[in-house]
C-alpha cells in the first residue's frame, strides 16, 4: 500500500482524535482513558494474521503472544469501562 496514503490517514485520524477528545468533560476522563486503552488493543487485528501462518516459526509464536496480550487489553479495557460508566448517574428529579 502507498506510504503517502497511509500517512494521509494518520494525519486525518490524529486531527479527528484531538477534536473528539477536547470536548470530553473532566468527569469522564477516567472512563475515556480506559476506553481508549481498550481501543489501543486494536493491535490484536495485526497479530491475528501473524499468529495463523501455520508455520511453527518465531513470527508465529510472537504473533500468538501478541494476540493474548492485546486481548487482555481489549476485554479488560471494555469491561472495566462499562463497569465504571454503569455507576455514573444523574440526580433524580425529586427527593
Amino acid at each position, binding site marked *: 500500500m502507498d506510504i503517502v496514503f497511509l500517512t494521509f490517514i494518520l494525519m486525518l485520524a490524529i486531527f479527528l*482524535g484531538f477534536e473528539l477528545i477536547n470536548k*470530553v468533560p473532566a468527569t469522564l476522563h477516567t472512563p*475515556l482513558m480506559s476506553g481508549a486503552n481498550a481501543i489501543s488493543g486494536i493491535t490484536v487485528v495485526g497479530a491475528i494474521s501473524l499468529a495463523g501462518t501455520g508455520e511453527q516459526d518465531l513470527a508465529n509464536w510472537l*504473533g500468538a503472544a501478541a494476540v493474548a496480550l492485546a486481548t487482555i487489553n481489549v476485554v479488560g479495557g471494555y469491561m472495566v469501562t462499562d463497569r465504571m460508566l454503569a455507576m455514573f448517574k444523574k440526580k433524580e428529579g425529586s427527593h
Partner: protein
Amino acid sequence: MENSTDLGMLIQFVYVASGALFIYGLKMLGSAATARRGNMLSAIAMLVAILAALMDQGIVEYQWILLGFVVGAIIGGAAARMVQMTSMPEMVALFNGFGGMASLLVGWAALSGATSTFTLITIALSILIGGLTFTGSLVAYGKLSETIGSGAVMFKGQQVVNSLIVLGILGSAVMFCQHPDTMQWLYLIVGLSLLFGVMAVIPIGGADMPVVISLLNSYSGLAACAAGFAVNNNILIVAGSLVGASGIVLTQIMCKAMNRSLSNVLFSGFGSVSAATGEVEGEIKPISVEDAYYVLEAASNVAFVPGYGMAVAQAQHVVKELCELLEENGAEVSFGIHPVAGRMPGHMNVLLAEADVPYDQLLEMDDINPRMENVDVAIVIGANDVVNPAAREEESSPIYGMPIINVDSARTVFVLKRSMASGFAGIENPLFYKDNTRMLFGDAKESIGGLIREFE
C-alpha cells in the same frame, strides 16, 4: 486468485465500517448520558475488526489465535471484574503496558515479511514505542500500587545515561535498517527500548502520575499505529492514532492543571526538589468531631473537596452518607473536583460515582471557585496541594501559579487529615494556619463516621 482479492477488498471495507464505529463511539463517550452506549459501540467496532481479520486468507490454522483469545479474555475479564475503583490507575497503567508489548511483538513478527526500508523503519518504531510503553507502564504500575517507592529516583549523570540510551537506539535502528538479517541489532533495539522505558519513568514523582499515565496511554496508541504501518493495516493506524491523540489531549490538560510544562514534568524530578522554607504565620486550630457537627448542622451550603487521601481511606461511601444527611438537614451540597486530584485524570469522579453521588453534583474547579464565597463549610478530605493557597500567594513556592480550588474563601474550612505531614509535593500548606481553618485530625473514614453518628 480473483476470489482472494475480492475477499481482500471486502476485509478492507469492513475495516472502514469499523473505523466509523470507533469514531462515533468515541464521540458518544464525550457525554455522560451517552457514554455507556459509546463504549459499547466501540467494543462492537473492535469485534467487527477482529472478525474481518479472521477472514484473511493467509490464515491456515486457528488454534494459536484461539488460544491467545482465551488466555487474554480470561485474564482481562478477571482483572476488570475484580479491580477496586481505588486501584483504577494501576490497572490502566498495567493494561497500557500490555498494549505496548503486543505492538512490540507484532512489529517483531512482521520482520519476516518485511521488504522495504520504510517497513523496516516502522518495525523499529513499533518496537521502540511498544517497548518503552511496556516497561514505563510497569514502573508506573509499581509506583502507583506502591510496590516500589513512589518518589522520584534521580542520580548523578542521569541525563547523560539517558542521552546515551537514545543515541544507542538511534544507532542500532540505523544498523538494523541496513542489515535486517543480522538479528543482534534487533535485539539491541528491543533491549534498549525496554531500558529506556524504565529510565524515563523513574525520575517522575508520585504526584505527577496523572501526567505519566496519560502520556503512556498515548504511547500505547502510537505503538499500535506504528505496528499498523509495519503490517500495512489501516484500522490499526486509525484506531491507534485516535488513542494517541486522546492521550496527548489528557496530558496537556493535566500539565495545565499543574501549571507545568510537559518537559518539566518529564525531566525535573519534582519530588526531589527541596521544599521552600517559607515561614507560615498563624497557628493550627484542631476541632473535635462534636464541635464540627455543630458547625455543619448550622450550615446551609457545604462543599466537599476530595483528594487522593479519600481514595486511600476508602471514605467515598461515608462521604455520600454524610452528604445525604446534610441535604436532609436542608443544606445545599456540592463537590469540587480538581483536575489532578487523585492519581489519574477523573479518578475522584469515578470513586464518587461508585458511592452513588450523581455526576451533576460534581463541579469542576472553574465552576466551584466563583461560588466558594457563598459556601459555609468547605470540607477538604485527603487533598493538600490542590487547595494550597501558596500556589496563589507565594512566588517562591514550587507550586506557585498552579490553579487551585480556593477553599480558603469559604466561611469555614474543615481539613480532614491524618497528621501534620506535608502533601505529596512536600510543601508546607498555609491553608492549615488560616483563621477560618479547623483541623479534624484522624482517619478520614472514621472522622466522617463520627459526624454521621452525631447527626443520627
